[in-house]
């Protein structure tokens, strides 16, 4: 899948905005949202939040997790642990990219936050590469990857699954053949001679 498709999926998350207009409730297929009251925070899907922000009809409220101390803790935990730590939610990177891209002026300490999130991302990606290599070396047919987000899993496709497929194919075609031939070579040695 493309990163944009995963962004598309992540955009369904609920985000918090403060509209600068007032409106009644709207009844979308994905749910009811509103009423919109200028100056009062409310929840809408992330795609709608970005759209309204781009039309300058709202401010985006940073999600709870997008705050310096919290992120520093996550980063330390990620550095310390051998495994992948549980991220605030499945689409943290999508949310970060969209919110910091469209509404960085609404986020306090936006540039520091960008840096920390990028650091966390880099640490995890590097761990991921090491894990892939370890997985291939140790067997290459099964792995458990809790706490990896969809965007991170997508970043190793098709490499990891296709390498595992390749390994399986090599094992299957090369091993199967040698045991089959054993029978036929015995046969030809012990068989009676025949005319061509």
């Amino acid at each position: 899948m493309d990163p944009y498709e995963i962004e598309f999926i992540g955009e369904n998350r609920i985000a918090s905005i403060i509209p600068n207009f007032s409106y009644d409730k709207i009844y979308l297929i994905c749910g009811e949202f509103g009423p919109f009251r200028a100056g009062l925070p409310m929840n809408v899907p992330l795609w709608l939040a970005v759209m309204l922000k781009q039309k300058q009809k709202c401010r985006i409220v940073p999600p709870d997790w997008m705050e310096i101390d919290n992120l520093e803790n996550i980063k330390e935990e990620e550095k310390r642990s051998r495994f992948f730590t549980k991220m605030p939610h499945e689409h943290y990177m999508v949310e970060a990219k969209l919110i910091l891209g469209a509404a960085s002026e609404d986020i306090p300490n936006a540039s520091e936050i960008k840096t920390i999130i990028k650091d966390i991302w880099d640490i995890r990606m590097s761990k991921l590469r090491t894990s892939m290599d370890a997985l291939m070396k140790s067997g290459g047919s099964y792995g458990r990857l809790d706490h990896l987000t969809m965007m991170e899993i997508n970043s190793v496709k098709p490499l990891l699954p296709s390498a595992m497929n390749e390994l399986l194919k090599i094992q299957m075609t090369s091993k199967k053949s040698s045991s089959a031939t054993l029978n036929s070579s015995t046969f030809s040695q012990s068989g009676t001679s025949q005319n061509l």
Partner: protein
Amino acid sequence: MSYLSVTDILVSNEKVPCKFLHDLPKLGFLDPSCTDDDLKAGTSVEIPIWLAESLSSRRPPLVTVDLPKVYKETYREIFSADACTVDLHKLAQYFYELGCYVAKYDIKGEVSTTLVNTFRQRFKMILSASVATDSINALQPLSECERDHTAAAMTTEKALSSWLKRGESLLTTATMVANHRKRKRAEMEML
């Protein structure tokens, strides 16, 4: 392998050394060093694997298939010592694919083990080539199959980097852009 796979067609054209077990009249042309019209029993000739499989699976078999040198003892030891130092592109660009074909002629089954272990060890070369700034050198020693995997991994990397960059939210563009054009040109030629 899929009937329509171009790689399979190319691989099955690779030559393997075979020993002919019988006199074969009029087939002297198979051996470029032979001056006769006829092919004598005991001659060793390199023929494509598609032909070798056909001739050796007849009853009685017309040839015995020998392993190409890359799958023999000496090289197997090199691979198990350090597979990552080998330039597979120079040595045997269809190393894995051809290996799968010839493994059946290795009664001891050691070729199979070598193929599996070599692929496992060299996986990290694919990993580093996919993110390398100097991708030409990183790609050079990889076999065709390894290069295909690397190419796919590079595409994913590019897509992810460009997604991160979009909207100027998270990734700095400076270093990426500088290397991008140079690298792209070289990769096109390589792949």
